[in-house]
C-alpha cells in the first residue's frame, strides 16, 4: 500500500511538471504577442494593480489554509480539516469570481479576447490558470466528501500540491503580466 502511495505522489509530481510546460508555452505566446495591441490599449492602461493585488492575497491565503488542512488531516482532526478546506474553497471561489468580474469588465470595455492578439494571449494565459483553479475547486469538493467518509488517503496531499503549484504559476502571472505590464517594462 505504501509503495502505491509513493507512486501516486511521484506520478502527480511528473504531471505537475508537464502542466508547467503547458504554462511555459502560454507564457512564451504572451511574451511574443503582448506588443501586438493593434492600436488598442496596452497592459499599462488596462490593468488595475490594486484589484490584482487583492486577488493575489486571496490566493496566497488559500495556499496557507490548504496547508493547514493537510496538517490537520495528518493529525486525524476531521472537523478542523473540513473547516480549513471549506475556507480554502471559499477563498478559491472568491478568486475565480474576481477573475470572472475582471474578464467581463474588460469585455464590456471592448477589450475582449477577440480584440487583438495581445488580449487573446492575455485571456488565455490568465484564463487557463483560472480554469485550473476551477478544476481544483471541483476536486476540492470531492476531497471534502472523502474526508467526511474517512476515505481520503493521500488525495488531500496531491490536491494541496496542485493548489500550491497554481499559486506559484499565479506569482509568475502577477509579476510578468500585471506588474511588468503596469510598469510598462
Amino acid at each position, binding site marked *: 500500500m505504501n509503495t502505491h502511495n509513493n507512486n501516486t505522489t511521484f506520478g502527480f509530481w*511528473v*504531471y505537475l511538471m*508537464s502542466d508547467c510546460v*503547458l504554462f511555459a508555452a502560454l507564457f512564451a505566446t504572451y511574451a511574443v*504577442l503582448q506588443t501586438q495591441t493593434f492600436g488598442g490599449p496596452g497592459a499599462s492602461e488596462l490593468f488595475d494593480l490594486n484589484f490584482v493585488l487583492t486577488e493575489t492575497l486571496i490566493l496566497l491565503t488559500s495556499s496557507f489554509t490548504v496547508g493547514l488542512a493537510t496538517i490537520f488531516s495528518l493529525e486525524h482532526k476531521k472537523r478542523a480539516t473540513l473547516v480549513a478546506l471549506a475556507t480554502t474553497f471559499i477563498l478559491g471561489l472568491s478568486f475565480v469570481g474576481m477573475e470572472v468580474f475582471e474578464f467581463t469588465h474588460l469585455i464590456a470595455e471592448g477589450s475582449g*479576447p477577440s480584440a*487583438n492578439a495581445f488580449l*487573446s494571449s492575455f485571456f488565455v494565459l490568465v484564463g487557463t490558470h483560472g480554469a485550473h483553479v476551477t478544476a481544483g475547486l471541483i476536486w476540492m469538493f470531492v476531497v471534502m466528501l472523502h474526508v467526511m467518509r474517512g476515505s481520503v488517503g493521500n488525495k488531500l496531499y496531491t490536491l494541496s500540491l496542485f493548489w500550491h503549484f497554481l499559486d506559484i504559476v499565479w506569482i509568475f502571472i502577477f509579476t510578468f503580466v500585471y506588474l511588468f505590464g503596469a510598469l510598462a517594462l
Partner: protein
Amino acid sequence: MLGKLDLSAFIHGPIETVAQLSVVFGVVVVVGLLSYYKAWGWLWREYLTSLDAKKIGIMYIALSFVMLARGAVDAFMMRTQQAIEVGANSGFLSPDHYAQVFTAHGVIMIFFVAMPFMFGLINLIVPLQIGAKDVAYPFLNSMSFWLTVVGAVLINLSLVVGEFAATGWLAYPPLSELQFSPGVGVDYYIWALQIAGVGTLISGINFLVTITTMRLKDMSWMKMPIFVWTVFGAMILVIFAFPILTGTLGLLSLDRIAGFHFFTTDLGGSAMMYVNLIWAWGHPEVYILILPAFGIFSEIVPTFSQKRLFGYTSMVVATLAIVFLSFIVWVHHFFTMGAGADVNAFFGIMTMAIAIPTGVKVFNWLFTMFRGRILFKTPMLWFMGFLTTFVLGGATGVLLAVPGADFQLHNSLFLVAHFHNMIIGGVLFGFFAGFVYWFPKIFGFMLNERLGVYAFWCWIVGFVLAFIPLYILGLMGMTRRLYEVSPQFHPLLVVAGVGAAVIALGMFFQVLQLVVSIWQRKENPAGDNPWNGTHLEWQTSSPPPFDPERSNDGVMVGILAGLFGFAMIWQIWWLAVIGLVGVLAVLIARSFQHHEHS
C-alpha cells in the same frame, strides 16, 4: 440543436463515397462477425475492459495495423494520382480530396500507426523486462488506450460525416484558420489529436513512473536493458513535448471557435508563432518514435550476433544526449522563416550535433556484430535494412541541416524522401523487427519465417524504388504536395508508384504471414526462449501469465470523450457538456470505489 451538422455532411463526391461506404461496410462486417460467433462477451471481458498491460499492448498493435492499412491506402492513392496525372489526364482525385488524402496520410501514420505501435510494444515488453507485474497505474493505462482509439475513430468518422483537414499534417495557419478552412476538416484534426494526445501524455507519465519505481530490487539504473532506457528517454520527451501540442491546438481551436487572434493574418496574430510552437512539440516527437526503435535494435543485435551489446554505457549516454538535444533543434524545420543568420547557424549546428550520438549507436551495433556468429533471422534482416536506409537518411538529414542547402530543398520532395527514410527505414522497420522478435513471447508460437523474409525483401526493395526517385525529384526542384506535376517529373513518379506497389506486396506477405502462422500455431510452439535472448522477458513462460483484473471505466471514458470530441467538431454544445461532465463523473465515481489500482 445539432450545431453545424446536417444531412449535407453525409453527401460526398463519387470517390469519397467509396471511402465512406467502405468504412461503413467494414464496421458492419466486424460487428456481424462478432455477433455471428457470439464473441462480444469474450472480447469485452478478455480485451476491451482488461487492465493487463499485455492485453492493452495487443490492442494497441491491432489498432496500429488497422490504421496502417488506412494510411497505406492514402499513400497508394497519392502515388497513383501523381503517376497517372500527365498531359491531359488530371488523375482520379479532385484537388481538395487530394489535399485531404495527404493530410490524413501524415496524421494517421504518425499519430495512429507509429504511436500506438510504439505504446503496444512498450506495454508488452517493458513490465516484463523490469520484472514488474504490471504498470504503475493500470486503469490510466486502459484509459490512455481508449483515448487513442477515440482519436482514430474520429479520423475515420471524417470519411463518413463531413470532411478532413486539407492543410498538411501540421495544419499550419493561416490556411487552417476559419477564414481559409471554413469546413469541419480542421476541427476533426484538432479534436482527434487533442483527445489522443491527452492519452499519450498520461501513458508517458505512467511508464516513466513504472520504470523509475517498479524495477526489480537488483536492477539498478545501469543494469536496465537498453530498450527500457530508450523508452525512459522517450517518455521524458512525451511529458515535456505533448503539453505544448495540447496548448498549441487549443489556441488554434480558440481562433476557430471563439474568434481569437493568435495565428490569424489580422489584428496582430502571428502564424509563425504556431509554426514555432508546433515544432517545439514536433521535433521531440520524431525522437519519441525513433528512440524505442533504437532500443529494439539494441535487443536484437546482441541476440542474433550471439554476443553482448558493445558499449552499454555509451548507448545510455547517447540516448540521454538525444533526449536533451532534441529540444533545441526545432527551428531547422523552417530555416526559411527569416530568423537571421545567427539563429539559423545555432540550430543548424545543433542539428548536426544530434547526429553524433546517433552515430555512436550505429557504431555500437556494428561492433556488436563484429566477430559475432550472426543468425540472419527476420528480426536481424529488418535491422540490416534499417542500418542501410537509416544511415542514408541520416546523411541527407545532416545535409538539410545546413541552412544554405535547406533554403534550396525546403518543402521539396528531397525533404519528403528524407523523413520517410527516417520514419519507414528507422521507426517502422524497428517496430516490425520488435514485433517479429517478441511475437513468440506474447502468443506462444513462432511466426512463419519464410513469409517474413519475403515481406522484408518486398519492403526494402519497394522502399528504395519509392523514395530514391523522390530524392532526385527534390533535387530537380519538385515541391511536395503537388496535385498537378510538370511532365519532366513524370518518369520518376512512375518508378515511385511501382515502389509503392512493391511495398503493398510486402504488406500482403505480412498479413499472409500472420494468417498462416496462426493456422499452423500448434506445429510451431515457441518455448520460453526461442531466440536465446538474455533479458528478463525470456525467463517467463510464453505466453506470460495474464492478469485477470478488469474495469469498464476505461471504455466508458472513451465513449464519453468521443461524444465530447464529436460535439466540439460540429459545435453541438449541449452534447459537449454531457461528454465532459460524463468523463468527470466516471472519474469521480471511481475515486469512491474501493480498489487496489488508481
